[in-house]
């Protein structure tokens, strides 16, 4: 079944380029003499962008049913809330 809704192989390769490039950028940034908290923040942001790219284009969430996005977002939000609550005492101390 051929469909226009599925991205082309060319787009998949462009996404690969971005995934590899962002990963290498993160590795290079980790070697820079800047504050560790800045490095952690930037690299986690880069990792999140990579995860979003994979989800949207490789897992087809961008063109897929919205219910699938809800199924994915619900545990992410709950997990984020749980980790934030666990870490809250430390954050408040800071």
């Amino acid at each position: 079944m051929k469909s226009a809704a599925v991205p082309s192989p060319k787009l998949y390769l462009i996404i690969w380029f971005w995934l590899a490039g962002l990963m290498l950028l993160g590795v290079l940034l980790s070697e820079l003499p800047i504050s560790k908290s800045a490095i952690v923040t930037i690299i986690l942001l880069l990792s999140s962008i990579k995860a979003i790219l994979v989800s949207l284009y490789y897992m087809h969430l961008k063109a897929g049913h919205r219910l699938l996005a809800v199924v994915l977002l619900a545990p992410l939000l709950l997990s984020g809330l749980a980790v934030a609550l666990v870490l809250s005492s430390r954050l408040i101390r800071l």
Partner: protein
Amino acid sequence: MSSKSHALSVSPGIPVATATGIPNGKLGMWVFLASEVMFFTGLIGAYIVLRLSHPSWPGPEHHLSVGIGTFNTLVLICSSTTIVLALAAAEHRSMKGVRLWLIATILLGLLFLGIKGWEYSAKFSHHIFPSTNVFWSCYYALTAFHALHVLGGIGFNLWVLGQTTTPALWVRHGHRLELAGLYWHFVDIVWIFLFPLLYLFS
């Protein structure tokens, strides 16, 4: 069934109408992946809490090679691309392409595990075990559970590859290529976060 979900289905068989408009197998896989998100968030969350609350975090002490970790991450990213290219080949009804990209995905998965196994053996030869300190117990727990998932993904991909041997099998089970792909991408996303946490931040 909505046009979108139908368009994204690689099922060669007759589409089955569902209440959600999403094929049951696909929805089931997403719900399973949602439970896996909770599982890995629990593990990673425990690691972060231990890391932040430990007064003198031991770290890998130069026993983890960023170069090897980077290469292995690249291997997994490549495998995510090859399996989505297998899906594209299925959409274009190219069985040769499906086989080629699936085999490439399986080989890349095996390469990832081979490198991880080599890393493990190097650690063992230096007498670094899960009991060595809190960092290594976290390292082995996180990477071993991830490796188990990679192994499961390879098994799933091998099964799908087996369905390409005859048209009759493919007509019945070909749609599971998309499910195998979803699982494989999830395993890739987990590693996207594990790599910096273990190799770059420690």
